[in-house]
C-alpha cells in the first residue's frame, strides 16, 4: 500500500483513533508493527496490527479480511487470542517486558498499542558485531530472564524468543518483544515453518498441540539466542537435529562448549548446552533452575514436569480439532522420518508409556513423540474417512443426474446461462504422464437451476483434503491429488508435491522433480516456493550448493511476505560478506518483483 517493502501496510498518516501512523517498523507472519504518534499525549508509540498473512489479507478500504471462508474461523480465533493476550500483557509492568498501553478493534482486525523503544534489535546488533562477549551477553540475558520469569509465573510462555524479538534500548538494557499472541491460532496452517523460527524453536514447537510446551520451550529459544550470540550463527534447526539423532543424516548440533571454547566460561557454555537439550525433559524446567546454572550454583534437582503453562482446559473443544490439524505441518516432520521402519504404515506404534523408561535416548524420546502424534492423527483420519465416503456417494449421485437427459432442453442457439459457483472449479486437465490421475472434477453443465454441483469440492477443499491425507500418512492419496491440482496450475499443490518428491513419499524421490515443482510454483508467484528454492540452493539439492543464490531466494520469499523465510535468510546471510549480501539481496528483489508481475 504505502511502502514497496511492506505492500500490506497501512499508509503513513493513516489515523487509528487518536494515533497517526508514521512508518512501518517491521512485519512478521502475524502482523505489522508501526511507529505512530499518540496525538493526545504527543508521544511516539508502537502499534502492532493483527494481520496473519497466511490466512488474511488487506482490502482496498484498509480493512483486513480472511483470505477464504475456510480461513475465517482461524482468523477470528487468532484475533480473539491477540486481544486476550494483549490484555494479559498489559498487566505486566516490568522493565524488560514490552509495555502494552492499550488494545482496540478497528478495520475488522485489532491493534495493540505499546511503548515505543528507541534502539535496535539484538538481531541487528549481532549482524553488526557478529558475536557478543560474555559480559555483554549476560547484560542482555539476565534481565530478560527476570522478565520472562514473571511471564511464566503468570502462566504464559513467549514461544517466539529469538534475536529479532529482543530489543536493545539506547541505554543498553534489553526488552522482550512480540509475545506470540496468535501462535496457536494458526496451528492448523499448511506448514509449521511460519509458526516457528528455525534454529530457535525446539522440536516440541513443531507439533500442533501446546501440551508439551512450557518454560523449557522458552529456555531452549533463549539458549539458542545466546548460541547465536557466541557462535555467530543460529544453532542447527530442531528438525535437522532430529534427523541427525535418528541417523538419517550426519547433522548434529555442535555444542556451545565446542563453539565457544576458550572464549566463554565453561559455566555459561554448559548452561547453554543444557538449555539446548533436544528433549524437553532434559532441559532446565524453570527459569530459576537455569539461572542457578548460569550463576554457577548446582542445578536444583529436576522437578516433576509441571502442568503445561497454557492449560488445555482453557482451549475450547471446538478449537482442539484445528490444533490437531496443525499437525499438517508436523506431518512434514513425520514425512521426513517416515522412511524409517518404525513409521511404516500398517505397523502400529507402541503407545507412549505414562512412565517412560529411565533416561531414554534422544532417538527414543523422538520416537515416542512421533507415536503420540500418530495416535492423534489416526482419530482424525477416521473422521475424515467417513466424510470422504459421504463425498463419494454425493459425487456418484451427481454423475447419475448429469447422465440423465435434461427435462426441458433450451434451444441450441441460446447461450448457456452462467452458473454461479461459490468456488471456481478448474477444468480437469488431460494427464501428461501415465501415473497422473486427474480428479473427477464435475464439469459445468448448462442448467439454470442453482446447481447441486456447487457442493462438490473445489480446488481449495481438494487441496485441504490432500494436505490432511499427507498429515495422516496417506502419501499416495495426497500425491495423486497434488499432482492433479498441480496439473491444473495450483502453486500450493506444486509446493506440496515438491515436498513429497524431496522425501520420496507417495512418489519417487527426486530432487530434480521437486525443483521443477518449486520453480513452477514460483512462476505463479508463490512465496513459499521461493523459500523452498532457497532451501534447495542452501542444501545443494538438485542444484549446485550455493549460499549466495540461497540468500537471493530467501530474500525474495521475505519480500513476497513469507516471514518464515527470514530465519533462514539470516542464517545464510551470516555466511556471506556484506557485498555478497547486498548483491544477492538485489537479485532477490528481482525475483520477488518478477513473481509479483506474474
Amino acid at each position, binding site marked *: 500500500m504505502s511502502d514497496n517493502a511492506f505492500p500490506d501496510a497501512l499508509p503513513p498518516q493513516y489515523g487509528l483513533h487518536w494515533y497517526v501512523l508514521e512508518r512501518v517498523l517491521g512485519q512478521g507472519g502475524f502482523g505489522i508493527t508501526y511507529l505512530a504518534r499518540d496525538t493526545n499525549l504527543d508521544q511516539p508509540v508502537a502499534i502492532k496490527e493483527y494481520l496473519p498473512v497466511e490466512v488474511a489479507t488487506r482490502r482496498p478500504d484498509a480493512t483486513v479480511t480472511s483470505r477464504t471462508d475456510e480461513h475465517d474461523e482461524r482468523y477470528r480465533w487468532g484475533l480473539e487470542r491477540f486481544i486476550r493476550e494483549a490484555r494479559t500483557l498489559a498487566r505486566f509492568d516490568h522493565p524488560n517486558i514490552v509495555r502494552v498501553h492499550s488494545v482496540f478493534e478497528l478495520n475488522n482486525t485489532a491493534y495493540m498499542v505499546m511503548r515505543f523503544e528507541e534502539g535496535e534489535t539484538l538481531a541487528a546488533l549481532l549482524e553488526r558485531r557478529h558475536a557478543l562477549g560474555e559480559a555483554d551477553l549476560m547484560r542482555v540475558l539476565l534481565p530478560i530472564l527476570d522478565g520472562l520469569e514473571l511471564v511464566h509465573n503468570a502462566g504464559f510462555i513467549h514461544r517466539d524468543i529469538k534475536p529479532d524479538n529482543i530489543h536493545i534500548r539506547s541505554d543498553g538494557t534489553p526488552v522482550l518483544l512480540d509475545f506470540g499472541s496468535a501462535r496457536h491460532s494458526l496451528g492448523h496452517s499448511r506448514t509449521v515453518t511460519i509458526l516457528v523460527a528455525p534454529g530457535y524453536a525446539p522440536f516440541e514447537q513443531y507439533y500442533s498441540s501446546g501440551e508439551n510446551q512450557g518454560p523449557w520451550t522458552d529456555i531452549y529459544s533463549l539458549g539458542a539466542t545466546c548460541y547465536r550470540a557466541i557462535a555467530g550463527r543460529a544453532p542447527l534447526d530442531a528438525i535437522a537435529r532430529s534427523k541427525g539423532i535418528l541417523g538419517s543424516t550426519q547433522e548434529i548440533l555442535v555444542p556451545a562448549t565446542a563453539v565457544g571454547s576458550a572464549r566463554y566460561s565453561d559455566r555459561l557454555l554448559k548452561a547453554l548446552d543444557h538449555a539446548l537439550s533436544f528433549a524437553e525433559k532434559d532441559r532446565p524446567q524453570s527459569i530459576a533452575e537455569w539461572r542457578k546454572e548460569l550463576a554457577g550454583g548446582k542445578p536444583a534437582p529436576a522437578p516433576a514436569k509441571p502442568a503445561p503453562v497454557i492449560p488445555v482446559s482453557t482451549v475450547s473443544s471446538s478449537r482442539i480439532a484445528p490444533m490437531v490439524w496443525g499437525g499438517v505441518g508436523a506431518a512434514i516432520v513425520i514425512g521426513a522420518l517416515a522412511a524409517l521402519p518404525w513409521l511404516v504404515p500398517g505397523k502400529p506404534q507402541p503407545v507412549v508409556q505414562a512412565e517412560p523408561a529411565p533416561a531414554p535416548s534422544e532417538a527414543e524420546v523422538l520416537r515416542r513423540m512421533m507415536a503420540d502424534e500418530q495416535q492423534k492423527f489416526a482419530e482424525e483420519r477416521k473422521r475424515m474417512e467417513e466424510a470422504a465416503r459421504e463425498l463419494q456417494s454425493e459425487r456418484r449421485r451427481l454423475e447419475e443426474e448429469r447422465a440423465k437427459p435434461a427435462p426441458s432442453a433450451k434451444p441450441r442457439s441460446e447461450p448457456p446461462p452462467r452458473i454461479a459457483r461459490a468456488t471456481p472449479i478448474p477444468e480437469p486437465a488431460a494427464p501428461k504422464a501415465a501415473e497422473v490421475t486427474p480428479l473427477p472434477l464435475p464439469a459445468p453443465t448448462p442448467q439454470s437451476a442453482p446447481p447441486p454441483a456447487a457442493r462438490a469440492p473445489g480446488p481449495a477443499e481438494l487441496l485441504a483434503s490432500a494436505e490432511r491425507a499427507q498429515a495422516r500418512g496417506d502419501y499416495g492419496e495426497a500425491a495423486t491429488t497434488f499432482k492433479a491440482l498441480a496439473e491444473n496450475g495450483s502453486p500450493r499443490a506444486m509446493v506440496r508435491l515438491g515436498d513429497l518428491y524431496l522425501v520420496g513419499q507417495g512418489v519417487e524421490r527426486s530432487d530434480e522433480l521437486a525443483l521443477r515443482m518449486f520453480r513452477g510454483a514460483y512462476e505463479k508467484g508463490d512465496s513459499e516456493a521461493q523459500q523452498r528454492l532457497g532451501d534447495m540452493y542452501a542444501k545443494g539439492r538438485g*542444484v*549446485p550448493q*550455493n549460499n*549466495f*543464490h540461497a540468500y*537471493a531466494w530467501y530474500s525474495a520469499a521475505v519480500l513476497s511476505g513469507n516471514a518464515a523465510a527470514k530465519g533462514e535468510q539470516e542464517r545464510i546471510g551470516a555466511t556471506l*560478506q*556484506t*557485498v*555478497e549480501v547486498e*548483491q*544477492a539481496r*538485489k*537479485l532477490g528483489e*528481482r*525475483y520477488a518483483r*518478477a513473481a509479483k508481475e506474474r
Partner: protein
Amino acid sequence: MRRFALCLLSAALVVGCATDDQKRNAINDVNSEFRVQYERILAELGTRVYRTNLDDAFPALRSALGRVGMRVGDQSPRMGYLSVVGPAPAPLTDAEWRSAAERDLPKLREIATQHVGVLGRFVSFEPEGLEVIINATALEVRNGVEISLTARMREIAPPKSGMPRREYLPPSAVRMGLEKIWNEFERELRSARTL
C-alpha cells in the same frame, strides 16, 4: 638436491610441531585479513554499470567467463543470474596465479608466523584441491545493466600441507581476476557492438 630434501624434512618436522589450535588461529587471522581486503576490492571493482540491455549483457558475460576457463554451474538468463565454477587458479592462468601469490605471500607468512612460529615461513597458497566459484548478476537499472561479480573458493580435496583451508582468494588474485573478467566482458560487448 640433498639440501632441498633436508629443507623439506625440516619443514615437515616443523609442521608436525604446530598444534591444531595454532594452525586454526593462524588461518582465522589470515581469513580476517583477506576478508577485509576482499570486501574492499569487491566494493571497488566488483560492480559496474554498462549502457546496454540484459539481452546483450548476459551472453557477453557468459562468454567472458567461459573465456577465462570457467564453466556454467547454474544460470537464469531471464533473471540475470549466472554461477560459474572452475578449478583454481582459474580464472587466472598458472603464471598469473604465481604472480598474484608472490605479492600476497609475505603477508600470509607474516600472519601465520605469529601463530605457528617457524612453520609460518613454509606456508604457501595451495590452489590444488580448490574450486573457484563466481556468482555473477546482471540486473537492469535505470541507465543500463549493472553487472556484479563475487568469488569464493570451495574445497574439493584435502590440502597437502595439513593446514586448514583459507576461505578467500589472495587479494591480488581477486583484483587480477576481476580485471581480467571485465576486460573479457568489454571485449565481448564491443564485438557485439553494443558498448
